């Protein structure tokens, strides 16, 4: 503990404020009084507010969107695996065709429609993938190129897959109910 006597009047005043001691100006006639009060306060260990540390919370600054890179690489892989799964799914469609021979035609048509849909859908994944192929060889930076969402699988892909699964389930369900061919899909 440094000697209070050697401190400046301003320091004494600041110390008094820290210990929340009501005081007036620190002049010659009042100095002794305030020094004594500070000694008492320090001895008692009263609540002393230390000088506020200027801690900056840099967590927000340091947060970088690093997970973008795995998203992109996984997205490319995902689209590739997605493309693989699609033909497998279409194969299952044809299996259903063999079991329900009555529906071969509409199913074929539906399959055709599916196929017609596929190039349309694969256009996007192809361009999607090509954009990935362009950028993945290069240094994968943190900066997101396109307005990519933070999803592992893009939203439209999820939506499309959901619609496809719903349609498939509807088909299966309707085929289980009646034996009539599905006329709506032609």
């Amino acid at each position, binding site marked *: 503990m440094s000697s209070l006597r050697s401190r400046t009047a301003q320091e004494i005043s600041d110390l008094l404020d820290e210990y929340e001691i*009501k*005081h*007036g*100006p620190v002049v010659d*006639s*009042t100095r002794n*009084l305030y020094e*004594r*009060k500070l000694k008492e306060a320090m001895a008692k260990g009263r609540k002393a507010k230390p000088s506020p540390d200027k801690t900056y919370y840099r967590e927000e600054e340091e947060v970088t969107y690093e997970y973008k890179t795995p998203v992109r690489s996984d997205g490319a892989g995902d689209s590739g695996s997605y493309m693989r799964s699609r033909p497998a799914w279409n194969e299952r469609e044809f299996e259903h065709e063999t079991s329900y021979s009555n529906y071969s035609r509409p199913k074929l048509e539906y399959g055709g429609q599916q196929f017609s849909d596929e190039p349309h859908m694969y256009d996007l994944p192809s361009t999607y993938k090509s954009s990935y192929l362009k950028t993945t060889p290069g240094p994968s930076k943190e900066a997101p190129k396109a307005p990519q969402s933070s999803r592992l699988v893009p939203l439209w892909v999820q939506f499309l897959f959901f619609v496809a699964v719903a349609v498939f389930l509807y088909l299966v369900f309707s085929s289980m109910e009646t034996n009539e061919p599905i006329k709506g899909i032609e």
Partner: protein
Amino acid sequence: MSSTSQKHKDFVAEPMGEKPVMALAGIGEVLGKRLEDKGFDKAYVVLGQFLVLKKDEELFRDWLKDTCSANVKQQGDCYGCLKEWCDAFL
């Protein structure tokens, strides 16, 4: 005020001017001598100290105790006297 002394009434009745420190209520000869030795030879000097301590009762009492070893009653009398004077004339 019920228990104010004659000294108190005399002091607060008029501007203090050059009155000695012993004119203050609660300050007798002994305390007055001690204050004079410390440089507080006139009542207005003690008034100055009272004002520098922002007319705060606790601070002034502590200062009086430190400076001239005044007891609690003497501290109270002197504080009351100066406070009333300030209310009237300051």
